[in-house]
């Protein structure tokens, strides 16, 4: 029944994870860009968290000025290429395209964006350079979308920036946490390299900042610190049997897949627990790795899933089956998980109620928990004055992204709880401006050239 053969080589892996938004050729870009209406106060721009001037870059592409288009994109969003590929454009820019109201296919904004950014990356064309040195040093913890964006913006403004990254690659979840059919590792890393070549920020890899001592050292050496630490590992469900080795977190599953690709061997029967986009990714990916039976189990109804409808559709099209209104009670097995016992649920005033006597068992060889990531509270509480909300998200000023400790700024998943690459990119950039204002309150933002 499997829709996909188990990939035996990187090539077969790539086939199973064929890019959902392949690069446009010149003719495609020309034709597609010609359709843009050039709306006034365009809804696509309003829908973009980074407010890229989309009609402008589309017109620039159409008139053969791909470099100008790329500049328009990067001016607002340092993760311009990654966002074109991994953004849920169906609910952002493309979802806002006025053509939707006419039942005409919206402009393929994401792919056009990639067309422009790829042009400059391919040509190695420098669009930006570091600003004249301001004599101030900023440390950034985490080389994810927020951290990288913050670093780029600060470099342009003339700050000396060092990023401390626990892993050995930049871009955070763009590489480690995104479904492989959205962006390839190579493409994500190419953009990182492209940015680093133009802007002189430093990244220290395999350099986790994890305790009070580390923080103290940074505070002593740097004038400001940006926290782009993201979230932690998959949160515990507190279910019996959760400790079996074949019960894993979705975030970890996706990460292993991104790095090991076809070398990952998935078993035949997999149960994914959760209803968010990560659950959809994990289920989709399990099926694409050749598992013969993949179940997605969510304790509420289909309509209540946090996942975007198109992510769910994608999972279903890969052969994933779904069970709604079923809550896990226990993971069964002796040494290994052999199944999950569920109970059916109904809802009363939004609260889940178990239906007595409705228990059932789904047999499986692997359980993937996609039930949210733990927060970094343990680490964060070591920063004096830093305030967290009750979901352990860092509280920041809405415009400057400054935390309760004036020397610390924060953005990305650690602040928004877990959102898109584009949100991290926006917040990192905003925080850089906040840092600029904090360190040099009398200078303008326009020192960018």
């Amino acid at each position: 029944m499997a829709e996909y053969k188990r990939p035996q080589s990187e090539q077969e892996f790539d086939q199973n994870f064929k890019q959902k938004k392949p690069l446009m050729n010149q003719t495609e870009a020309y034709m597609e860009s010609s359709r843009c209406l050039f709306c006034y106060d365009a809804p696509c721009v309003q829908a973009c968290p980074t407010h890229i001037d989309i009609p402008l870059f589309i017109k620039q592409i159409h008139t053969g000025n791909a470099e100008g288009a790329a500049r328009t994109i990067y001016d607002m969003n340092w993760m311009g290429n990654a966002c074109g590929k991994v953004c849920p454009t169906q609910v952002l820019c493309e979802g806002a395209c006025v053509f939707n109201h006419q039942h005409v296919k919206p402009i393929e904004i994401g792919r056009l964006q990639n067309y422009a950014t790829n042009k400059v990356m391919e040509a190695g064309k420098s669009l930006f350079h570091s600003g004249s040195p301001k004599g101030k040093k900023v440390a950034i913890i985490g080389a994810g979308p927020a951290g990288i964006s913050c670093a780029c913006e600060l470099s342009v403004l003339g700050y000396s920036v060092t990023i401390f990254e626990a892993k050995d690659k930049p871009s955070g979840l763009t590489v480690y946490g995104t479904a492989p059919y959205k962006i390839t590792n190579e493409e994500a890393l190419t953009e990182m390299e492209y940015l680093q070549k133009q802007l002189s920020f430093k990244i220290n890899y395999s350099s986790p900042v994890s305790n009070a001592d580390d923080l103290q050292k940074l505070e002593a050496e740097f004038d400001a610190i940006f926290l782009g630490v993201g979230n932690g590992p998959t949160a515990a469900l507190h279910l019996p049997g959760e400790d079996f080795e074949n019960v894993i977190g979705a975030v970890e599953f996706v990460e292993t897949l991104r790095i090991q690709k076809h070398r990952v061997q998935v078993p035949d029967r997999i149960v994914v627990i959760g209803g968010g986009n990560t659950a959809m990714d994990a289920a989709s990916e399990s099926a694409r790795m050749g598992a013969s039976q993949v179940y997605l189990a969510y304790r509420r109804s289909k309509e209540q899933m946090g996942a975007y409808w198109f992510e769910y559709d994608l999972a279903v099209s890969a052969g994933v089956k779904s069970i709604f209104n079923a809550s896990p009670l226990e993971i069964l097995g002796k040494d290994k998980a052999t199944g999950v016992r569920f109970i059916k649920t109904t809802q009363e005033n939004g609260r889940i109620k178990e239906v007595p006597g409705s228990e059932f068992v789904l047999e499986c060889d692997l359980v993937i928990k996609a039930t949210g990531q733990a927060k970094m509270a343990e680490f964060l509480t070591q920063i004096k004055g830093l305030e967290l909300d009750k979901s352990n998200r860092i509280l920041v000023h809405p415009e400057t992204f400054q935390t309760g400790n004036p020397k610390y700024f924060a953005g990305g998943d650690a602040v928004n709880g877990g959102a898109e690459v584009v949100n991290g990119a926006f917040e990192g950039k905003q925080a850089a401006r906040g840092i600029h204002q904090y360190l040099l309150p009398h200078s303008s933002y326009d020192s960018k050239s």
Partner: protein
Amino acid sequence: MTDLSINFAGIKAPNPFWLASAPPTNSGYQIMKAFEAGWGGAVWKTLGVPVVNVSSRYGGLNYRDTRMSGFTNIELITDRTLADNLREMEEVKKYFPNHAVIASLMVESRREWQQIIKDVENAGADGIELNFGCPHGMCERGMGSAVGQEPTVLKTIVEWVMEAATVPVITKLTPNISDIEDPGLAAVQGGTNAISLINTIKSIIGIDLDTFSPLPAVDGKGTNGGYCGPAVKPIALNMVRQLAQHPEIAGTPISGIGGIETWRDAVEYILLGCTSVQVCTAVMHYGFGIVREMESGLRQFMEDRGFQTIYDFAGKALPNVLEWKDLNLKHKVVASINADKCIGCQLCYIACEDGAHQAIALPQNGQSRVPEIIDENCVGCNLCSLVCPVEACITMEKRDNGKEQLTWDELVAADAAPVTFNDPRAGGNGHFVPEPTQALKKHAS
């Protein structure tokens, strides 16, 4: 029963769709193929002393992803010998005796004109078209548009032709002249049986941004070409209309040329008085097959309206083309936006705001994106309805009572028209115009 056949100044054809004298009529092979495809007639690529051509020869004007919305060429008349052309013409007439084969001609002396007329008549040509229009190359040698731009010369040559011709003669005019009525009148006075227009417009279609060469480029250089294709239709329609309304020209059959690609284009020409139409660019773009759409559309148009022949509606638009001074100043329309159809692009807003009369407001509630017409500011200019990408979303609603009639002439006669620079009777007086500085406030917020 709908009958598409025509008798154009004595030239009979099964339908009014003719190929214009141009590359598609370069050979008997092409014309035979065209007749098989459904064309009613063909004007043979201009015959004369054969030329030597350059490479390259054509240039296109693209609009967005639309190719060749305008087209230019620097090709000259036939580069094949007269003997070859005549032999093929004879062959075509043998196979298609009921189709119109018209020989386009361009020579210099009276002797040459009268000789070549005999030659093409002997080959079976049903008519002759005098090429007084070609605006590139040939005009440098005193032919083509050089003739069309000199009404007295034109008249003289038409007279030479009329002395010799036994088949109907069509005089083809150049638009590269300040008033098309001058050569039109000269042709009629010279005795022509019919007129065709327009030939191509003198043009530079573009410049290569890397080499700085005009296009099409011939070894890095270029020259003005002859512009045609869909973009020239409005110019041609007006020139056709001018001749069709001229008291001394009206009644002379007119063959309309310029940007005709669909049945709609053809009907417009016919409504302005043409009784045959000629097509070139559309065929160069899509091939002879497009005539099927034209023929079917024309037939449908006629059936829907009960027209038996094209003569039933030829010229029907002419009485409606007036001079500006005769238009009704009391007619008043105001734009109306259909909120159900509006997709919220707000192009109407910005077009009116920046390009017209500041008569459209953005919605204030922050919810909807449907702009609103400010009725009292709207002058009924149409711009919003033109930029709107949704069919029939913005309509122009009639606001006058239909009873009042006042023309400019009447206004002047009643001494009610503005006559001095600061005349309070200025039409825009009292019409809303924002203060200049309001532009800055908007910009700052």
